[in-house]
């Protein structure tokens, strides 16, 4: 296990280095002058030059790269030209919101895709199976931004059930931040009503992400379940008098989950890329929104930092899922050992 961790750790570092280097140079390939733009119309040439010097934009590209990578080794992601703050400080402010949305969406995705897959298999070939297939295919065919707006229209504007955006009701005061995860902070504050408010705010953005991925998740899970139900051990279990629930939860589900896990980590990658759109639509104060605003003015330091952080989150989740394999499947455990 330690060997696996060491190997994955080394690969991860290499991937992060490559991502940082590529993003650094790619972001500067596009001709743009963020310093002149941010200084404003009629800013004196001296003022623009001062901004360029302050952010090191007047130095040769290679020199900027060396300085940036040197800073990275010390955990310094540079300074945002737009917010005039260290990028690390901005990330600390924005990252918890994104992580909370991603984790909530991921859990919702797993629960929903398996729930629908179980229903589809239970009534395989019937109208329930067909309806689930149509619903999930439709969901995957609708662009995330349009789906987000449609959800806002129905659940905020028409029904008035859920907030249009944000992490917490605009006029309400959130609990004091401890972890930055509102679901946890509201519980730590012992405020169940606030927990409900935070949960309600999560539902629409998470749904916009999840509905889009359900087609793939449900179909993969359904196929895995069908494969497992066809195996001899299920017949044996039935012969020994095991009920449908026991067969599903004790035998089939556990065996079916393992092969789906690898694809699940790829789905998580899609979630990360869609979170930018969803955060913009739902006014969600996470790194997606931060990235969008940084891209607009070619604020280089946050762009590179966000690529690194997104990659890191993806790598950590992939590693976590890989570590789950041996726990779920004893054969993998033996192979690993």
């Amino acid at each position, binding site marked *: 296990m330690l060997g696996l961790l060491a190997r994955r750790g080394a690969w991860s570092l290499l991937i992060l280095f490559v991502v940082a280097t590529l993003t650094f140079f790619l972001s500067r390939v*596009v*001709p*743009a*002058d963020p310093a002149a*733009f*941010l*200084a*404003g*119309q*009629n*800013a*004196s*040439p001296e*003022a623009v030059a001062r901004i360029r010097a302050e952010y090191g934009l007047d130095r040769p590209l290679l020199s900027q790269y060396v300085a940036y990578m040197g800073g990275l080794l010390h955990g310094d992601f540079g300074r945002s030209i737009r*917010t*005039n*703050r260290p990028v690390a400080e*901005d990330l600390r*402010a*924005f990252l918890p919101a994104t992580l909370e949305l991603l984790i909530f969406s991921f859990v919702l995705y797993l629960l929903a895709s398996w729930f629908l897959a179980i229903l589809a298999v239970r009534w395989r070939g019937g109208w329930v199976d067909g309806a689930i297939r149509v619903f999930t295919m439709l969901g995957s065919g609708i662009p995330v931004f349009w789906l987000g*707006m449609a959800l*806002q229209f129905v659940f*905020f*504007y028409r029904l008035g*059930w*859920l*907030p*249009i*955006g*944000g*992490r917490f*009701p*605009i*006029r*309400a005061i959130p609990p004091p931040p401890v972890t930055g995860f509102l679901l946890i902070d509201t519980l730590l504050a012992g405020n*169940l*009503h*606030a*927990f*409900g*408010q*935070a*949960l*309600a*705010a999560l539902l629409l953005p998470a749904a916009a992400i999840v509905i889009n991925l359900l087609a793939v998740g449900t179909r993969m899970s359904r196929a895995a379940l069908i494969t497992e139900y066809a195996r001899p051990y299920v017949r044996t279990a039935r012969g020994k008098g095991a009920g449908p*629930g026991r067969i599903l*939860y004790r035998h089939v589900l556990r065996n079916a989950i393992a092969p789906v896990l690898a694809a699940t980590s790829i789905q998580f990658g899609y979630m990360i890329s869609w979170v930018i759109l969803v955060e*913009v*639509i*739902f*006014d969600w*104060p*996470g790194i997606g*929104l*931060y990235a*969008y*605003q940084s891209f*607009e*003015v*070619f604020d280089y330091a946050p762009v590179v930092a966000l690529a690194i952080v997104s990659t890191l989150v993806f790598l950590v989740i992939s590693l976590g899922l890989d570590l789950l394999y041996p726990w779920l499947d004893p054969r993998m455990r033996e192979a690993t050992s």
Partner: protein
Amino acid sequence: MNRYRWCIVALGPLIGLAASGATPLRAAEPSTLVWAEAAEPATIDPAKVNVNQELTVARNVYDHLTNFELEHPDHLLPALALTWKRDGTDWTFTLRHGVTFQHGQPFTAADVKATIDRDLAIGQGQSYLVSDIKQVTVVDPYTVRITTQQPDVYLAANLSRIEIMSAADIAAHPKDHGEAYFTDHANGTGPYSFVSWTRGEQIILQRNTHWWGHFPDKPFDRVIDRFVTDAATRARGLEGGAYDLANFVPRDEALRIGHLPGFHLVEGNNLWAWPAIYLNNTLAPTSNIDFRDALVKVFDYDAMTQYYQGSSVTPRGPIPDWVPGSPEKDLAPIKQDIAAAKAALDKSGVKNPVMTCSVPSGFAEFAFAGTVLQASAAQIGITVKIEQLPFVQAIDAIKSNHSNCFILGNANLSPVDATKFLAAHYTTGGYYNTAHYDNPAFDKLVAQISSVTDPQQRYDMLKRASQMIIASHSIIWAARPKTDVPVPNHIGGYRIDPAEYINVRLWELYQK
């Protein structure tokens, strides 16, 4: 089956909690106003604020030496200064007594000097409006003398845009002129005080009950300046009651919402031509003046009027007619004339012309103007390739001579001084001179206008400057629309500032 029951038992309370947390459309807090802002500010430092979302805080937290009547921008009103007079290059301002900053310091002439000195030292934001200032002298605690490089008739009006900071605050943060500190700290004498800034979410302001000015009955005690990046979300949220007011609601949505029950539409003049198409004077084929003439003449101005549903006019030149001293009414109308456009194209001698146009993305009006140009030019055989790019990249494309045209919303923050706009957009070295218009005679003329005391002479000079730009065929002023803002009927007092982006004058708003 037990497991299903377990699921229901586990999920039931969660669903119940989410339902209990679902927000009613409007919380019962009438004295709180939610203003949906199109973006998060990069800074609230008055010396650096430059765009709409940054000006919201600056305009409401700080005061200015002068104000002006929105309907008559050349009629100045007292603010922190009660009286002012000009004598050659010297302006003397007599200041209001008994004004205090929100953190308690008394306001004096030293604050005016420290503010202007700092603005000029930083040289960003709105400092261009007062860049002619040579020196600020404190005559006594309530008298300040401002000396300009040359006589400047517009100075008092332009000071209506300069937020006055506390000299003590500036002195307490000498490093980098306090730029890091003032990025997210504010202490003014204005009607609202800065409370907090939650990054990515909102800024909270609170009514300054010690303000020297007058609030209407039932003002808003608390204001939430909420950052809502997506235009459709702003429109939907305004319509659904999540926000009380919103800026930059897409025009068609604004008109629709404004006519719904429970809303009314406030219409007014706001900034200048929007949008304008800049034609590059230094890159073929637009480097050919006759070719540019053909483009100006072939453009379908009526299509733009239809796009704005009739609430726009076709400009005759760079300065709107409602700007004091505008020569617009004495300029010839600009109309589509395809025969004249063909003649101009023939005269240019350009064969099979192809040109590129960089259009900043995210602005429906710009995209439409680009499409109209493309379709209009095709009628006389000119191929226009449109490149939609992020603003910074689009402007860089034309400034670095990689594009023939660029589309920009014209803006001027001064209520009366057109020369600042002309300098930024048409003089050599002007940041927005994306047409690369280069005319030393024009530069000289624009530099002289503010020093001329005779209004008729200034008028003639502005007219001459406008004619020079028109004759260069460097700009297609596609349309000059009115601004329409949908306002819920429970909000009173909303007015459009003609020399501002879509603004909110919080001190004038009240609950109906």
